[in-house]
């Protein structure tokens, strides 16, 4: 390390600062050599147990019974916890609105989303815990399901929680200025309806928790890759029924990405802590990918109607927002924060004085939502910036002119928005001017015109957004009425903390509670502090692990709302300056000069006027240890300084619901050119330009890294990613083969441009930059696609199938005589038919179909068949579909018996991997050669884990399995091989699955 630093020093000119340089990251060497210390890389106490979680296959069902007896007897199992056990050890998690509703980290009596924990199995290793999970027998009684936020509003929708009005957890209206008057007098009212989908930034490292309980002290010790905000610590200690000082929450040194998502680990902290208490041993749980995609957390999906009162020249006079936010099955802290994070910024980058808002929060049978990069921004800007594009189209104006015409004026900062945000600084007009010139908009327009002249589908999209950072901890209380807020007490601010320590040999350590997940905080802090002390970054050691029992922290601690550069790094600067100020006093006294004459340069503290009059930094800095008596009076120690910093601008919402929801407001102007292939309807990004003003840039390469990373995630959200649910609430995207993240083949390199307008409100002038492209890019691409296709209605993700409907119209009906293929979304039922010929009489086939011994022999994977009555059978079968193989208990009932001609089989199957139900009609007809022709039609539906990860294979697998059944029936009857109506396709599939022989 020392050599690398020496190398660095060569390029560091005297008098220049480390801040602003792209120095190599201190984090990289260990990460590149396999020496990272992520949670699953750390050793645990001997005797630590491992947890697996059994999860609900149903989106909405009562739990009739849970039989854990077999699981408890399973090898290695120490404890099995169900909802009842967890409720006896913990208290419900708090809910973010005032309502008599409980929120447990495990299902209690009822499941409300696919993937909701139903039991926790604790065993000596994870494999044994998962073995035991398969042995738990849960009986469910399914309830009607509601997955769509607007459907959830309907009076006859199934109700998830009795404590809410219907499914509405919150319904608030806001009014700023005089929107009614503005709409009444405006020349135009232009509206747009938006459905923003569910997605997630999906870190590659999943959740992890290691929990221990000390009964003697009634205290928990938890290690988790939780990212904050540490306001959740209060939620956790309350749920675990201990005071905060008896919940020690620690974070590992490294965390494999989060993007907000790892805030959502907190219900599992409660669950695993409860398991550790029940097992009286430490318990470790590492989430797997299916669990993560199905049930960790996601961004909210939102239905928005946005209207603008617009003048003839495109000036927006007022906005009317109607937002219906879908928070999934439970309103977990800090939700409904996604809906309120942008409340001060509902007018975007525009000067709009009149505003009307209706915000409703609904619960549906989907995974509960939480933090996700952009947090509320993508949902708001998708509506706002689509509307701006529509205004241009409907009024026949240039979209960029409409943007320019409405921007906040350059001289207006700090600018108070209609709903209360204080936009700190900026020059939006200049940013756009530079973006247009340096980004080559004129050339891009020429490319578009040339492409269109050739008949190609090419479009250009624009967006201008304000990127908020450093959240006001009080913004979430805007969901409460002023009266409720008065009762609850004020909430506001954003306390950041930093501690500087100096040891006896004068080496400097920094600690902050920023909990990075890969952003390079340690490197930037070493730059910031090195500048204050006249040292090099390699002289500074930075620790960003957080231990709530030993470290300085506040409820605002953590890694979210892009608060590191503006708040945390600035606080470290303030802490270093406090110590430097005292060191300057000591130096002045030692060097016989004034404090004003002291400078920190190149490892020394000395006189500016006489540079030879100096003392080494380390000698001076160590004095507080070695000889406190030698310090001048009143200086105090220079060993350790902790600074808490909160900006005064972040005040609580006022009685008129004005809220300065964030401290800093960067500006982003994006434009892009896209081409849509006329044949494949794939969208290709031809050029993407993103202009950022994030205030002072501390480390240019890291800022560009944040922009590129956010852009790639936003590209995924725009083109590929959606957490898809079937109407029955089955989760359909449980693997990375179903939930498609962009790879090297899909992500282009955007052109990144910068200008720097420092924030007057932060110590370093920096603003947040981590989330902006997640807000600006999805709608910029959508605007370009809308331009290319000349269409109004654009829903994300822009998959070819959706664009096909726009370009080619809805798919025509299938030709007569051919059944429509199973639709992939919406209707997941499997339908099929086939035929087999058996060399036996119809009477004999009939007898075989009703004989348990024959059925046991011919049903694929059957263990045994039990005849409960003449028309009621029970079977145990093992079936494999794609990667999922599991044991199912099937009930089969016969009806409409017409011996020996026809019978209807109705049945259901349930197992650890999912459930299914269906009905089939079998008809028998004699053939000319004395055999029997069996014709069958069936319709089935399948849900649970198998739907999440094997969904693409279900159709084919069902055909194969049913084909196998009749093939072996034919063999059993001594007949010929069956012939099937879709012979070649089925034969191919059968080879694929290795069945049918």
């Amino acid at each position, binding site marked *: 390390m020392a050599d690398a630093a020496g190398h660095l020093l060569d390029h560091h000119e005297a008098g220049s600062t480390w801040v602003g340089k792209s120095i190599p990251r201190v984090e*990289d060497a260990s990460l*590149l050599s*396999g020496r990272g210390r992520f949670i*699953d890389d750390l050793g645990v106490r001997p005797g630590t147990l491992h947890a697996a979680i059994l999860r609900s296959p149903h989106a909405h069902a009562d739990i009739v019974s849970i039989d854990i007896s077999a699981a408890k007897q399973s090898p290695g199992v120490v404890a099995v916890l169900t909802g009842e056990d967890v409720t006896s050890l913990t208290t419900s998690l708090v809910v973010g609105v005032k309502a008599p509703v409980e929120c447990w980290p495990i299902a209690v009596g009822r499941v409300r989303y696919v993937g909701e924990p139903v039991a926790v199995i604790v065993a000596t290793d994870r494999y044994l815990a998962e073995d035991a999970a398969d042995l738990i027998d849960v009986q469910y009684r399914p309830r009607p399901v509601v997955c769509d936020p607007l459907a959830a509003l309907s009076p006859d929708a199934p109700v998830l929680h009795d404590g809410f009005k219907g499914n509405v957890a919150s319904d608030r209206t806001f009014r700023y200025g005089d929107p009614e008057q503005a709409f009444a007098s405006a020349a135009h009212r232009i509206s747009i309806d938006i459905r923003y989908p569910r997605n997630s930034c999906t870190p590659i490292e999943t959740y992890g928790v290691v929990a221990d309980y000390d009964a003697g002290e009634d205290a928990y010790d938890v290690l988790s890759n939780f990212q904050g905000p540490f306001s959740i610590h209060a939620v956790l200690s309350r749920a675990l029924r201990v005071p905060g000082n008896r919940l020690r929450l620690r974070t590992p040194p490294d965390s*494999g990405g989060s993007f907000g998502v790892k805030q959502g680990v907190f219900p599992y902290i409660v669950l695993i802590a409860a398991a550790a208490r029940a097992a009286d041993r430490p318990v470790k749980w590492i989430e797997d990918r299916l669990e993560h995609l199905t049930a960790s957390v996601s961004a909210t999906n939102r239905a928005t109607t946005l209207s603008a009162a617009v003048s003839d020249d495109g000036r927006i006079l007022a906005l009317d927002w109607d937002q219906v936010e879908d928070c999934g099955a439970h309103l977990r802290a800090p939700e409904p924060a996604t809906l309120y994070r942008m409340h001060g910024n509902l007018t975007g980058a525009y000067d709009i004085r009149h505003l009307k808002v209706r915000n409703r929060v609904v619960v549906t049978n989907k995974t509960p939502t939480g933090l996700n990069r952009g947090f509320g921004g993508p949902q708001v800007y998708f509506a706002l910036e689509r509307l701006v594009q529509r205004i241009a189209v409907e009024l026949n104006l240039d979209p960029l002119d409409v943007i320019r015409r409405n921007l906040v004026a350059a001289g207006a900062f700090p600018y108070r928005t209609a709903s209360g945000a204080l936009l700190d600084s900026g020059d939006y007009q200049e940013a756009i001017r530079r973006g247009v010139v340096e980004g080559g908009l004129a050339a891009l327009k020429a490319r578009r015109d040339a492409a269109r002249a050739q008949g190609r589908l090419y479009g250009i999209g624009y967006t201008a957004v304000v990127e908020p950072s450093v959240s006001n901890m009080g913004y979430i209380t805007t969901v409460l009425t002023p009266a409720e807020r008065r009762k609850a007490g004020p909430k506001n601010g954003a306390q950041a903390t930093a501690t500087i320590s100096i040891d006896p040999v004068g080496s400097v350590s920094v600690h902050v509670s920023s909990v990075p997940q*890969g952003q390079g905080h340690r490197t930037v802090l070493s730059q910031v502090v090195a500048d204050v002390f006249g040292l090099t970054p390699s002289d500074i050691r930075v620790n960003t692990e957080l231990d709530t029992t030993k470290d300085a922290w506040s409820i605002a601690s953590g890694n979210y709302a892009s608060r590191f550069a503006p708040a945390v790094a600035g606080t470290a600067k303030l802490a270093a300056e406090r110590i430097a100020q005292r060191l300057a006093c000591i130096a002045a006294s030692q060097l016989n000069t004034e404090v004003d004459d002291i400078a920190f340069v190149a490892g020394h503290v000395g006189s500016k006027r006489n540079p030879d009059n100096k003392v080494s930094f380390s000698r001076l800095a160590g004095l507080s240890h070695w000889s406190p008596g030698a310090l001048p009076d009143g200086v105090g120690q220079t060993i350790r300084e902790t600074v808490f910093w909160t900006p005064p601008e972040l005040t609580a919402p006022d009685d008129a619901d004005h809220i300065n929801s964030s401290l800093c407001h960067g500006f982003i102007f994006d434009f892009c050119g896209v081409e849509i292939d006329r044949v494949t309807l794939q969208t290709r990004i031809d050029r993407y330009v993103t202009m950022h003003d994030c205030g002072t840039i501390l480390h240019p390469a*890291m800022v560009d890294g944040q922009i590129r990373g956010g852009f790639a995630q936003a590209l995924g959200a725009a083109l590929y990613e959606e957490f898809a649910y079937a109407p029955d609430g089955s989760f359909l995207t449980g*693997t990375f083969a179903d939930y498609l993240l962009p790879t090297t*083949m899909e992500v282009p390199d955007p052109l990144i441009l910068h200008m720097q307008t420092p924030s007057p409100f932060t110590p370093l002038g920096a603003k947040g930059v981590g989330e902006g492209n997640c807000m600006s890019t999805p709608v910029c691409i959508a605007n370009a696609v809308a331009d290319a296709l000349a269409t109004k209605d654009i829903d994300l993700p822009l998959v070819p199938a959706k664009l096909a409907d726009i370009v080619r119209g809805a798919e025509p009906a299938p030709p007569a005589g051919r059944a429509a293929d199973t639709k992939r979304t919406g209707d997941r039922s499997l339908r099929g038919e086939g035929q087999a010929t058996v060399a036996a009489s119809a009477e004999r086939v009939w007898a075989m179909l009703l004989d348990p011994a024959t059925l046991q022999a011919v049903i694929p994977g059957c263990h045994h068949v039990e005849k409960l009555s003449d028309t009621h059978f029970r079977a145990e079968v093992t079936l494999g579909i794609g990667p999922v193989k599991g044991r199912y208990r099937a009930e089969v009932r016969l009806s409409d018996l017409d011996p020996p001609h026809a019978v209807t089989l109705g049945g259901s199957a349930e197992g650890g991997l999912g459930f299914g139900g269906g009905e089939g009609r079998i008809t028998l007809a004699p053939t000319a050669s004395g055999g029997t022709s069996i014709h069958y039609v069936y319709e089935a539906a399948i849900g649970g884990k198998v739907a999440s990860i094997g969904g693409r294979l279900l159709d084919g697998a069902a055909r194969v399995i049913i084909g196998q059944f009749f093939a072996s029936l034919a063999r059993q009857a001594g007949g010929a091989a069956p012939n099937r109506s879709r012979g070649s396709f089925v034969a191919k599939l059968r080879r694929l699955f290795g069945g049918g022989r």
Partner: protein
Amino acid sequence: MSRLQAGRRHPVRFSLNGKPCTGEAEPRLLLTDFLRHQIGMTGTHVGCEHGVCGACTVSIDGSPARACLTLAAQVDGCEVRTVESLAPSAGRLGILQAAFKRNHALQCGFCTAGILMSLDCLLRDHPRPDEATIRDFLSGHLCRCTGYAPIIRAALEAAAEMAGDVSRETTHA
């Protein structure tokens, strides 16, 4: 391969990063769990356990392989290399690692081990890959932090350096 009995541990003898290594594994034990939790080599990461994200990529007999889709028992007699093999010595970085550091080709570093192992295999077989080849080869890896561009740049730089087009001083960690 001889028939292994479920539920019993069987010896696995293989070469790990050039040194002989012996462990015991039940037939169902994944290579990822074996390497990480039995051998203690935690540099190989687990991101999806279904072979898509690529974080667990190791080299088995010179070819990149998903350790999460490989059973420990399958590497008996094989030559396995992991990210821990890439640095020439403690405190120094190899050419590829140094190029990643220079180009800020990692942020959280969780997917990085797998990407490095894939590129290491690629560059051994194809010393001068072009950008299209590298992009194609890395399409089996998911990175959520970087947007890939710096990774591609680092790979191109490392390839040029290894092929002798550029020379750099030894890079210290």
